[in-house]
């Protein structure tokens, strides 16, 4: 080879001939829609190519991956997925690009307000919601009908029904309830639903202090410890995230199941599920005197502050969140999307009648309070909840007091300088 050829070839290799690359950090998506959407986007935008960077399934681990990329000022990440609890943190750290110039207020009005609130921080917007999730109760319609039971409205009722069914079914493989109780973010969502539905809260946003020590919060946690774990759920749920708990349900081995909207399609897919067509869905129960509370979840698309081509990145986000795409996603997956209009779409409702109920639940869903220090707070709560529910004889008073004290210390960081 001629000596001058090598540098020339190298130049050719890195020259910007052809499509510009947009790097999209995402998780593995199993329903196949992401691939098709990216394919369609590239067909409509021949000058752009989407390169997917696949991160872990667990939100906690995905957070650490994205945060790591930000800390390294990684220019190889343009668009990224954001869990509903991160916008405040990423905005405060200066990692997520404010999207106000792309995403004006009149456009935001077309999305579910709770999702827009979760993406706003100190007056600016940092993400565009793609999926909106809310905690739901799934149940075995056939079993409840067999014993002439209505979907439970209160948690004690759920326990009662589970015990009735377990007692009469007499099948060793069947458990009453499966949820997510591993020490991770999902545990906070699950426990928050119990606490809020007993008129409690995680922390007091106005006074910046922990609220786990309150009587109502402790009552709710005690209920989970004494009546759910090891009672109507086997202790294995203490290691379960969403996939494991859903698998138990779709194998027909759980009467009740707590999960996000995506579980509906999975549970009714005859290829993957033994209980397809025998599944019911309802709002989560509440404690007597309380109101059903669903944790707001969901995923947003954001642009990295270190991206070299935010304009091009926006074209991809705009495509993914436009009405037409959102409708296609809803029709393909049955997952809750972020645009309000989709929930009234006759075609969508025809295929997924549950969207009507899902809209009500999603609109009323409770976000975990947005704060830049969410992760440290969540770690304290995960520690507390896990310790509280995984041992029958846990000292709730002491554990809750400790958790509150630790949360107070973290929340103190948010007080204005003068007050500290």
């Amino acid at each position, binding site marked *: 080879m001629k000596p001058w050829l090598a540098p020339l070839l190298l130049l050719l290799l890195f020259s910007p001939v052809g499509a510009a690359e947009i790097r999209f950090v995402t998780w593995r998506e199993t329903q196949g829609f992401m691939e098709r959407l990216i394919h369609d986007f590239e067909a409509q935008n021949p000058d752009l190519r989407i390169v997917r960077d696949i991160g872990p399934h*667990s939100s*906690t*681990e995905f*957070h*650490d991956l994205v*945060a*790591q990329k930000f*800390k390294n000022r990684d220019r190889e990440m343009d668009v990224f997925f954001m869990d509903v609890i991160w916008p405040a*943190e990423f905005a*405060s*750290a*200066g990692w997520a690009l404010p999207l106000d110039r792309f995403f004006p207020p009149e456009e935001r009005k077309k999305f579910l307000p709770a999702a827009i609130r979760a993406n706003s921080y100190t007056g600016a917007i940092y993400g565009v919601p793609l999926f909106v999730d809310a905690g739901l109760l799934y149940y075995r319609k056939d079993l409840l009908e067999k014993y002439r039971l209505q979907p439970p409205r209160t948690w004690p009722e759920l326990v009662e029904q589970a015990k009735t069914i377990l007692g009469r079914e007499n099948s*060793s*493989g069947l458990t009453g309830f499966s949820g997510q109780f*591993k*020490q*991770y973010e999902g545990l906070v969502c699950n426990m928050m639903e119990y606490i809020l539905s007993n008129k409690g809260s995680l922390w007091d946003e106005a006074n910046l202090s922990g609220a786990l020590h309150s009587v109502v919060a402790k009552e709710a946690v005690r209920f989970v410890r004494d009546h759910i774990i090891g009672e109507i759920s*086997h*202790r*294995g*749920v*203490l*290691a*379960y995230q969403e996939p*494991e708990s859903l698998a*138990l349900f779709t194998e027909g081995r759980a009467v009740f199941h707590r999960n996000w909207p995506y579980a509906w399609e999975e549970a009714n897919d005859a290829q993957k599920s033994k209980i397809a067509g025998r599944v019911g869905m309802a709002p989560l129960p509440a404690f007597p005197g309380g109101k059903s509370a669903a944790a707001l979840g969901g995923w947003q698309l954001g642009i990295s502050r270190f991206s070299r081509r935010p304009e091009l990145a926006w074209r991809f986000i705009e495509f993914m969140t436009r009405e037409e795409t959102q409708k296609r996603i809803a029709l393909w997956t049955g997952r809750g999307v972020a645009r309000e209009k989709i929930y009234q779409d006759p075609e969508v409702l025809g295929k997924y009648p549950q969207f009507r109920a899902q809209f009500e639940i999603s609109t009323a869903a409770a976000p975990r309070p947005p704060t*830049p*220090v969410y*992760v*440290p707070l969540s*770690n304290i709560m*995960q*520690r507390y909840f*896990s*310790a509280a529910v*995984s*041992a029958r004889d846990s000292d709730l008073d002491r554990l809750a007091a*400790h958790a509150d004290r630790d949360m107070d210390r973290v929340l103190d*960081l*948010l007080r204005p300088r003068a007050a500290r």
Partner: protein
Amino acid sequence: MKRSERAALWFVLPSVFLVGLFSIYPILESARLSFYRMILMLPWLGEKFVGLENYRDLATDPVALDSLAITLVFVGVSAALEVLAGLGMALLLNESFRARGLVRAAVLVPWAIPTVVSSQMWRYLFNDRYGLFNFLLFGRATERYLAPLADARLAPAAIVFADVWKTSSFAALIILAGLQTIPDELYEAAAVDGATAWQKFRRVTLPLLKPALLLALLFRTIDAFKVFDLVFVMTQGGPADATNVLQFYGYKKIFAEGMIGYGSAISVGVFCFSLVLSFFYIRLIGARVLEKGTAR
């Protein structure tokens, strides 16, 4: 003499440079950061020098103290089991039998598998519904199946088990090397004196194997102190913090919570512990080698 020394210096320089760049510099940088309060998510707090505050907090942080206890138990139990298992394996591999080469290679397989992969494997094996572990213990009696990773007492044991499985062969390798330096004449002499197999092991093998055993123990102790990937993949520190080892706690502080200063203080703590342990072992091993030298 002088010139060759100078030449030697030049040869050592590249490795000094590399060690300095990739080991010394990060350690010094962590030490520096550990004196600051620096929280990534709250950039307006700035980088504030706080002296020993992070260390004071660390000394009174119940989670950190629990984490230290968990780590020490993990180190003690796993290193001891690994050296014991390694000794057994080494003694076996030192015997001559058919296909010894093959067995020797096979023993190293667990060690050659990346920890993240083997951790994932153990996570499945310990699963409470379809895990092989339960099947072996209880067969078809599914109602008796345990959930080791969901139980605050069993989860640490499961982590130790996975670590022993993976790294015993490394200990075996070092011990095997030690075994092969023991001259056959000593065994012949012992045989002539009418020693039993146990006496041979107790009086000949074990004393001469001590440096190798200590070396294996040193490597395993320090490595065990840095345990991270097993916990990261298998339990994420849970349930109820039962497997929240120091390195994982520090990782969470820095990478998830953005508490750079406090997390660095944890890293420096782990570093100091390993340093003290290394000094202790190296003195022990050094003394052994010295003894051997003067005896000759």
